[in-house]
């Protein structure tokens, strides 16, 4: 069976009898949750998209305390949100099983940083498993549940994008029966982490840590291959590159320690490995996590040998590795001649034009941004947030001055406003608003900050593939019929000035922005219109009539491409034209054109 890495993880969980699953979507982890969502519609598997990663972990922790087998999935930066709960959940431990899937993203294909989440294992004291192949992702996920139940601890399954988004052949096992109902046995002096309790729990965690170390030392996920004198220690996808490089170099000088159970680090096994080799190369993407552990082992065992990993002539902490890089470093490490790949000459080829992602045709965020720019221009400071709308950063919209993490658009806005006295307009999406916009907004109201928050409400989590959030209506699926009102939430947090607009009503949006701008204090504009990609998947969707540019009327002001820059426009000869296939009929550009030269196509032209 040919599966995507993320499908293999979901399958592994089902084969382990997972009964309770939660997630906040985030690339590259999202497809795991999608599997659970779909399966939960047809079986007794419980799944929820929680409001954020911390909530996801907490909900699952509650179920795991009652003896259920649970899984929580998130991207690497999501663990930062969940970390507060995670650190002390390691103290209480759990009764059933809890497997936390953390998907790291080296090279930042779709992320704001490339943090190495293995350090969360070290910080919390929890075990970490790292698969090297898609098949192993399935098997290791299954094992993670057993390990979690054995140690009574959450177990971290750490992947990288190149596992999540790779496909490979897997052998399926049988699906296990789910235990969907548990029981909670009260034990407040073991579970309520007041200082006196936690002082007992920390040593308990250290005991489990010692137990986990012993398991890691014996684990078949950590194995030695070959018996050469040159040691290579590797993990994750790097293991595949190492094997391929050794095969291609065609020599047997090497002894490889593949680490799959990477925290607690298998000290005894590593010491045995080090005793048989002259020097060691550690091959790991990201930070020198294993390299530090290996040096530590060597020191404890009194072994003196060169340990290479990160550094000049070896590997970088930056980005993804690739097979050629690993082969080159191994060849250098072992003084082997090797035939490098020889790419064809490309420096005289014409440059391929950049193809940056862009807000889609008919995206309501574009409409909001055009209006904000008309009202505030370059005068205001624009803290922004995580989602499709981050793409407003690109010209000609130029909407986005600061971005670090989810919710930080609202949080930083008060700081920018107080420090400069300038107008500040912060942006946040609807999913991000529920994820982490509520507390900074409450704080801003209470501390009497002065800024405008624009909630870009497209009715879904757009960027990660249209997952629901607490504000989403899913009545057509017989799910969530009573979404939470963003207006009510904002007003409930004490914001007095709240206006909701449809951003495709351009003049009304500009008027509303002027009103909120004139207000002193925290004001909120909710710009609500559906994500066009999501909208067209809903029942009853009807494509609107596309627009065209009437050549006789057009005076080539080009405000359409200078201010709006919708991807449905293209320049043909001297004039701007609209691609009718891509135009969604949102009518934004028709309201911007100073000559009113943009008109809906007649019905009969559309049907042709």
């Amino acid at each position: 069976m040919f599966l995507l890495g993320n499908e293999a993880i979901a399958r592994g969980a089902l084969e382990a009898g997972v009964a309770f699953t939660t997630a906040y979507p985030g690339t590259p982890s999202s497809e795991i949750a999608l599997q659970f969502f779909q399966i939960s519609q047809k079986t007794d598997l419980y799944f929820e998209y929680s409001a954020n990663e911390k909530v996801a972990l907490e909900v699952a922790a509650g179920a795991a305390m009652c003896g259920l087998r649970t899984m929580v999935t998130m991207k690497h930066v999501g663990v930062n949100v969940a970390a507060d709960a995670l650190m002390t959940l390691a103290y209480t431990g759990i009764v059933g099983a809890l497997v936390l899937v953390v998907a790291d993203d080296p090279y930042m294909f779709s992320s704001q940083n490339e943090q190495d989440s293995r350090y969360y294992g070290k910080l919390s004291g929890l075990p970490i498993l790292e698969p090297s192949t898609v098949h192993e992702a399935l098997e290791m996920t299954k094992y993670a549940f057993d390990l979690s139940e054995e140690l009574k601890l959450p177990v971290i399954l750490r992947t990288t994008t190149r596992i999540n988004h790779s496909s490979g052949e897997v052998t399926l096992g049988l699906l296990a029966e789910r235990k969907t109902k548990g029981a909670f046995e009260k034990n407040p002096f073991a579970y309520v982490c007041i200082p006196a309790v936690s002082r007992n729990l920390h040593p308990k965690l250290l005991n489990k840590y010692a137990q986990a170390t012993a398991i890691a030392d014996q684990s078949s996920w950590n194995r030695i291959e070959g018996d050469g004198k040159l040691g290579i220690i590797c993990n994750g996808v790097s293991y595949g590159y190492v094997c391929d490089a050794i095969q291609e170099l065609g020599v047997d000088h090497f002894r490889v320690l593949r680490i799959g159970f990477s925290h607690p680090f298998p000290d005894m096994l590593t010491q045995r490995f080090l005793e048989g080799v002259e020097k060691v190369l550690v091959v790991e993407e990201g930070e020198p996590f294993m390299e530090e552990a290996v040096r530590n082992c060597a020191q404890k065992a009194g072994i003196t040998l060169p340990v290479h990993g990160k550094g000049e002539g070896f590997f970088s902490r930056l980005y993804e590795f690739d097979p050629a890089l690993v082969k080159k470093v191994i060849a250098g490490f072992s003084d082997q001649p090797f035939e490098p790949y020889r790419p064809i000459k490309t420096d005289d080829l014409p440059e391929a034009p950049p193809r940056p992602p862009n807000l889609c045709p008919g995206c309501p965020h574009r409409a909001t941004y055009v209006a904000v720019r008309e009202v505030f221009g370059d005068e205001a400071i624009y803290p922004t947030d995580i989602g499709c709308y981050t793409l407003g950063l690109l010209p000609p919209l130029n909407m986005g001055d600061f971005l670090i993490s989810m919710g930080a658009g609202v949080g930083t806005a008060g700081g920018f406003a107080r420090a400069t006295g300038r107008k500040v307009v912060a942006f946040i999406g609807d999913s991000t608003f529920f994820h982490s916009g509520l507390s900074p907004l409450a704080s801003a109201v209470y501390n009497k900050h002065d800024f405008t928050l624009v909630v870009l409400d497209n009715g879904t989590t757009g960027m990660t593939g249209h997952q629901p959030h607490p504000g989403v209506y899913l009545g057509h699926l017989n799910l969530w019929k009573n979404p939470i009102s963003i207006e009510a939430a904002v007003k409930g947090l004490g914001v007095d000035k709240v206006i909701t607009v449809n951003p495709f009503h351009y003049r009304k949006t500009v008027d509303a922005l002027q009103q909120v701008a004139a207000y002193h204090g925290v004001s909120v504009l909710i710009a609500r219109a559906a994500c066009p990609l999501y909208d067209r998947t809903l029942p009853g969707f009807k494509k609107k009539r596309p627009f065209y540019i009437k050549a006789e009327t057009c005076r080539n002001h080009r405000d359409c491409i200078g201010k709006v820059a919708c991807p449905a426009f293209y320049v043909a000869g001297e004039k701007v034209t609209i691609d009718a296939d891509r135009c969604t009929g949102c009518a934004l550009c028709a309201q911007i054109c100073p000559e009113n030269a943009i008109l809906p196509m007649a019905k009969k032209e559309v049907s042709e």
Partner: protein
Amino acid sequence: MKTIRIMIVAVGGQGNILAARVLGEAALAEGIAVRMSEFHGMAQRGGVVESMVLLGDGKGYCISDGSADVLLGFEPSETIRAASKCNANTVVITNTAPVPPFTVALGKGHYPDVESAMSLMAGRVKKLIAFDATSLALQAGSSLALNMVMLGALAKSDAVPLSQDLFVHVIKEKTKKQFVDINLNAFEMGMRAFS
């Protein structure tokens, strides 16, 4: 079996991932080990989509510069962007119909001269086949069948040890029922385009 590395590049919406999947399933049906990775960060928002398909021996899921045995380009400027994956023995099969990025479409960027770029590349690789695959897909019944045209050309190229019948079988099994006829037409047209 020695590893065969096939790099597939396209623009969001051109069906790259499905093409890679059909190729992968065909190899599996033939008993050949397959590893594949796909990168489609913001494909729906106009970005680049890359698939790497590795057949045969090996454990890695990634294709380094200079190591592709085949470069299958669904869009000519993407073929140019991925040219560094090629070496002197690479077979390049590329569509010549451009999908200009919006910056170019708005007159704010320059689209390369495809013909001269392809003739430069042709002299540096084992074989380069360039043809208007988008037109063929339209003739077959839908621009969405572009991926099947490209697979047809790949099947005919002998760059992968998979028979054309095998592809036909997988297309019948794995693509949506209502598109099977168009897909098979498109596949045939792709085969004829490779000469």
